[in-house]
């Protein structure tokens, strides 16, 4: 599956993604560089990256991973510590963070897939992984109980700015890259193989697919993207501590992925960005009187989607399109 073939086959989607990125890049002008909205939008797009990355392991490979912030936290803290202690620029640190996150993914994933752990047990292990890292980094030898601050240095060199538009654009670019990576996977042998594994592992194996290898590959790609973005997460949070290994938000990412529809890039993006924006809006308006209102809504939505529309937003879209197209075909062709 060469690049040339991919580009010619997926031209429509690639152009669509680039156009989306271009439009997103114009948003700061539309909202007059309002700091508050830019912060919310940067966070929303950051979640877009997370959920699009989650789509690789959760959507394509069908493994319900609940460990997003294990990789985000680890990658972010590695980059932040390199920056704070050794003065290493985050541009290097983020790649190191991604690498460390991928090593962790390989260390956990190899035995896990080797021993055929899946479904509920995989979900539990991944949930436990966040707690393990949270507890370990809580030890006084590591981060202890304190909040840690990044050095007060600003500029593109450190990816930290007094205002948010540059960070917003950076996240937009990574989102486009993450979506293109997904697109490439989706239309390549790896994507076909991962979907086959999601649908039926035994049948996939009998067709000559090395199930363990492909699952591990999916997990490492997911962990790598998250690990890379960890530093951005810390920049937006302002501080890092053992709390960066955040269990509830790890679950939120999986929730957004499922609501978007497994294996759908557009669904993952739409679900993450809208839910996050609605969430932040509710938090800022009702958060003081009803804390957690946005999470309550995520939970309810997830139950509804799970029971009535297991294919998520993408499924709703497909059935709408089918209705529409069928009418068209009857009306025009026949």
């Amino acid at each position, binding site marked *: 599956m060469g690049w040339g073939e991919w580009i010619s086959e997926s031209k429509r989607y690639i152009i669509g993604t680039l156009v989306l990125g271009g439009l997103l890049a114009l948003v700061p002008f539309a909202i007059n560089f309002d700091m508050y909205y830019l912060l919310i939008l940067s966070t929303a797009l950051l979640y877009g990256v997370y959920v699009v990355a989650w789509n690789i392991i959760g959507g394509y490979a069908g493994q319900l991973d609940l460990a997003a912030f294990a990789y985000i936290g680890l990658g972010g803290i590695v980059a932040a510590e390199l920056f704070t202690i050794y003065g290493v620029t985050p541009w290097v640190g983020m790649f190191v963070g991604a690498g460390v996150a991928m090593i962790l993914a390989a260390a956990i994933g190899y035995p896990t897939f080797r021993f055929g752990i899946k479904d509920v047990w995989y979900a539990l292990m991944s949930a436990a992984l966040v*707690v393990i890292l949270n*507890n370990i980094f809580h030890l006084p030898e590591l981060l202890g109980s304190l909040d840690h601050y990044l050095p007060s240095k600003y500029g593109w060199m450190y990816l930290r700015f007094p205002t948010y538009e540059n960070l917003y654009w950076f996240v937009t670019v990574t989102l486009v890259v993450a979506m293109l990576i997904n697109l490439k996977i989706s239309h390549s042998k790896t994507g076909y193989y991962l979907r086959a594994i999601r649908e039926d592992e035994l049948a996939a194996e009998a067709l000559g697919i090395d199930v363990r290898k492909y699952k591990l590959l999916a997990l490492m790609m997911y962990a790598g993207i998250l690990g890379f973005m960890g530093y951005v997460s810390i920049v937006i949070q302002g501080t890092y501590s053992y709390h960066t290994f955040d269990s509830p938000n790890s679950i939120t990412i999986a929730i957004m992925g499922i609501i978007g529809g497994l294996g759908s890039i557009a669904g993952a993006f739409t679900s993450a960005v809208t839910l996050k924006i609605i969430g932040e809006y509710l938090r800022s308006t009702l958060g003081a009187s009803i804390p957690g209102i946005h*999470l309550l809504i995520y939970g309810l939505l997830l139950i509804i989607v799970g029971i009535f529309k297991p294919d998520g937003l993408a499924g709703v879209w497909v059935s709408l399109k089918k209705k529409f197209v069928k009418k068209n075909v009857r009306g025009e062709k026949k």
Partner: protein
Amino acid sequence: MIDPSLVANNVIDGVLMGLLYSLVALGLALVFGVMDIINFAHGDFVMIAAYLSWLLAMAFWLDPSIIAVITVPVFFLIGVAVYKLVIEPILGAEPLIQIAVTVGLGYVFQNVALGIWKAEPKSFPNPWFNFSIDLGPVTLTVAKLMAAAISLISLYLVHYLLTNTKFGLAIRATSANREVAPLMGINVRKVYAITFGLGIALTALGASLYMSWGQTNPYLGQSFSLLSWVIVAMGGLGGVVGVLYSGLIVGILEALGTTFFTASARLAVVYIAFFLLLWFRPRGLFARR
């Protein structure tokens, strides 16, 4: 360097807590074993029941453990209602959907609790049994001792229910083969509703007992959920006895984690053990088959 009486005290504490964990995990094991339902919100029922125990204890000014008389039947009914509303539609659905829906349910519970009671922990200010007795080198908290004893008795009662009653036979028949059970005159839906109700009632008992010394917050359920699943993983298909032993192991591991590392690292010890267990003994320590 580490005081042996401290170790002994912590281990005893771990055993007592372990019995309580077994009680809570038994509810999950029933639901998973009999109905093949993956419930990720199990611990969140403990959390809600803990708040209810606290509320009623405050209202009647009685020890929360006494409140179990109310919470257990109420949560049985809540369990049946949740079964009808949320669980029945996902019977037989793929694991991912079951996990998603129950994760959503847990999220709803947590954030309802957060919305109503906010994040500060709640505890009953006038507990009756939260005092210690000295037995030579070790000190025992009476409330925990009581909770452990009641847990053990309840485990036995459930075991008796499953092995010696007609209803227990229906549960076991359904769990063994849900296609054949109806042919034997068993109403599977009814068995499921009651099993789920029973599983949830056990979380309420655990919660009320726990509140006679502990405190609750909206996130109490997360650790109860994960710990219960660890116990079910260890217990394998070993029935009530497997759950009992596994709960004790988890309680002791947690105590050792507290002793040799710090209290905040105790869960890491349990979960690392869980990883090793899944990798090397995926069928559990007490699997019957």
